[in-house]
């Protein structure tokens, strides 16, 4: 109880409240503009938050992370263009509603479902806290190594249809973090004699290049377009009542969001698809899905908004980020010498509770803000894309240059910007590079520190948690192999029947 009060006390400061307002409202606006996602905003703001208190800096970033998906629903519903990538499924049912003249219903349903998902996620996080505080100290070096390894494997396998590319990029990420002076043996690795490579490749520089600069290049090289969103008329509170009729879908979808948000590498996309499929399968009107079904909209929005809180679980408890945004937040912890992981719950529990309350507050702020300013946001959406590209380029400079005032950093970020552009154009994932860098670093350090206590390789898994994680790794491979075999078998009759069809004709 004492910790809860000290957590609340942390929030009762003018700078934290300001950070909360800036983060949550800024996040909604950023989310609402197609072409700027939370990743771009967080990457740009990251170095600026280093000079702030950990709770202030983290609140801004958390605000952007948690509220961007609220904003992203607006263009998804109104102009069939998701504001953030994770609002893709929202447009499936939201846009047909708009075409039927029910834009206000779709938007208000999206807000209500998002709020439900957001609060559900935070409640789970709060309820799980005692369990986390109990389990987290059982994680030693080998357990964290295995958990990071599981994270890498999941990140690769989660990119169905792009597994080889995801694997290549994750390995590239692991390689990038090895470049520079090895901290233990003091030997140079892949520096090619260049002094600027001795200090390694900075994660923030890579993040800014891959997320922010690449997005600027992407917008600047593409033809100009001006998204046109019409203002919404009607009562925006109507969705709350309708949501209450679909409590089951909203809760199960939020549950998917929480569960998948906790697992590194899976996140919003998988949660959305699973809950959408669930909602469709259990619906009385499954044919309505994709044509303006309120259940589909609720499933999608509740699931993706439950993820941010859940994604904080592996980050806070184990120091393992599950996706790119939490990976960026990890660097804020490190800069302030607050190391997330088992000790955080023992030494900085007030910070943890402070973050929980910040998450609750931001959901409330965002909903109130949206109820009054949705029509204002429809005007913001209309920023022409190339102009947006110019602005992102200007802002990226602050991010990269303020880090160390280094022109070399800008050049490295530019190289990653071009790489990010190529990956975006090819529809290949960027996240594996970032997670490869972060998780690769964790794996190297933890494996080294576990070594003195290992006599045989089997000692690696002789503790219960380590054995469970190892079993999970095996399970993931088995499930993946099973899916592949299933797909292979399922493809055969289809192929043959087509062949027979052609012979019959």
């Amino acid at each position, binding site marked *: 109880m004492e910790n809860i009060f000290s957590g609340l006390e942390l929030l009762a400061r003018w700078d934290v409240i300001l950070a909360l307002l800036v983060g949550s409202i800024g996040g909604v606006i950023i989310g609402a503009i197609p072409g700027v996602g939370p990743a771009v905003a967080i990457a740009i703001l990251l170095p600026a938050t280093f000079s702030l208190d950990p709770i202030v800096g983290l609140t801004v970033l958390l605000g952007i992370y948690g509220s961007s998906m609220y904003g992203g629903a607006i263009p998804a519903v109104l102009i069939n263009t998701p504001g953030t990538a994770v609002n893709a499924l929202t447009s499936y049912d939201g846009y047909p509603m708009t075409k039927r003249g029910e834009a206000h219903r779709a938007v208000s349903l999206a807000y209500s479902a998002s709020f439900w998902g957001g609060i559900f996620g935070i409640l789970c996080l709060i309820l799980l806290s005692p369990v986390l505080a109990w389990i987290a100290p059982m994680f030693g070096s080998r357990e964290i190594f295995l958990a990071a390894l599981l994270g890498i494997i999941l990140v690769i396998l989660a990119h169905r249809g792009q597994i080889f590319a995801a694997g290549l990029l994750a390995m590239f990420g692991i*390689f990038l973090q090895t470049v520079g002076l090895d901290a233990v043996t003091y030997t140079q*690795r892949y520096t090619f004699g260049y002094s600027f490579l001795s200090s390694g490749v900075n994660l923030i520089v890579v993040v800014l290049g891959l997320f922010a600069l690449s997005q600027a290049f992407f917008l600047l090289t593409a033809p100009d377009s001006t998204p046109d969103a019409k203002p919404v008329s009607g009562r925006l509170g109507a969705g709350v009542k309708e949501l209450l009729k679909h409590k089951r879908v909203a809760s199960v979808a939020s549950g998917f969001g929480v569960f998948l948000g906790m697992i590194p590498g899976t996140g919003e996309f998988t949660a959305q698809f699973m809950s959408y499929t669930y909602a469709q399968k259990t619906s009385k009107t499954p044919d309505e899905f994709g044509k303006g079904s309120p259940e589909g909209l609720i499933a999608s929005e509740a699931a993706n908004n439950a993820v941010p809180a859940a994604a904080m679980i592996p980050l806070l408890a184990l120091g393992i980020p599950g996706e790119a945004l939490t990976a960026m937040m990890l660097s804020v912890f490190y800069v302030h010498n607050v190391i997330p992981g088992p000790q955080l719950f023992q030494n900085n529990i007030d910070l943890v509770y402070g973050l929980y309350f910040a998450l609750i507050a931001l959901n409330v702020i965002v909903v109130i803000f949206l109820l009054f300013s949705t029509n204002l946001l429809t005007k913001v959406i209309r920023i022409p894309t190339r102009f947006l590209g110019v602005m992102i380029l200007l802002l990226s400079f602050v991010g990269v240059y*303020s880090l160390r005032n280094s022109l070399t950093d800008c050049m490295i970020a530019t190289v990653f910007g071009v790489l990010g552009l190529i990956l975006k154009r090819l529809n290949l994932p960027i996240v594996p590079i970032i997670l490869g860098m972060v998780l690769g670093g964790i794996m190297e350090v933890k494996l080294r520190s576990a070594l003195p206590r290992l006599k045989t390789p089997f000692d690696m898994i002789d503790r219960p948690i380590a054995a469970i994680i190892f079993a999970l790794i095996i399970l993931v491979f088995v499930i993946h192999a099973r899916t592949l075999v299933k797909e292979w078998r399922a493809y055969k009759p289809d192929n*043959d029947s087509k062949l027979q069809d052609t012979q019959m004709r």
Partner: protein
Amino acid sequence: MSRIKTLQSLFKRNRRPGDIVFAWAALCFSVFLLSQLADQTIWKNGGKLFAQPRFWPAVSLWGMVVFSAFHLIGAALSPRIHGRWSEVWLWVTSLEYAFWFIVYAAVVPYLGYLPTTIIFAMTLTLRVGYRSFTAITFAIASAIVIVLLFKTFLQVKLPAGRFYEYLPDGIRQIMLTYF
């Protein structure tokens, strides 16, 4: 035959034009890095395998080579998509904006953050095709807001321009500290 076809189908992906160019480039880059392993990393005699400074570069680079080889096989087995070289040309054209960015970063320490940002915002807005007075005004206003937000308000670490040294006494200190 169908079995081979299905095996092929496992490697096929929903691709975009230019994928095979990326696949070849990734493989060549990975192989080049792997070929430098002995040169660029050290093997410490007597140390355990997992603690060797060479261990993680070797693991990641072998991983890159294997994955990029499979990625290339996947790209080669999938039907060709037209527009490969126009896509590659688009990648090349992005270098122009990369150049703009580097020039901007190089000029800031000399001309100062505020003037460089205004000039850069204005010229780049013209370059990307906006000619209207409103667009230019918006660009300049946005540049000023960005400077005020980050340099004046948040006091982000950015160097003061050398040009500011030549300003009159009253303004110089304000410009050096806040803009």
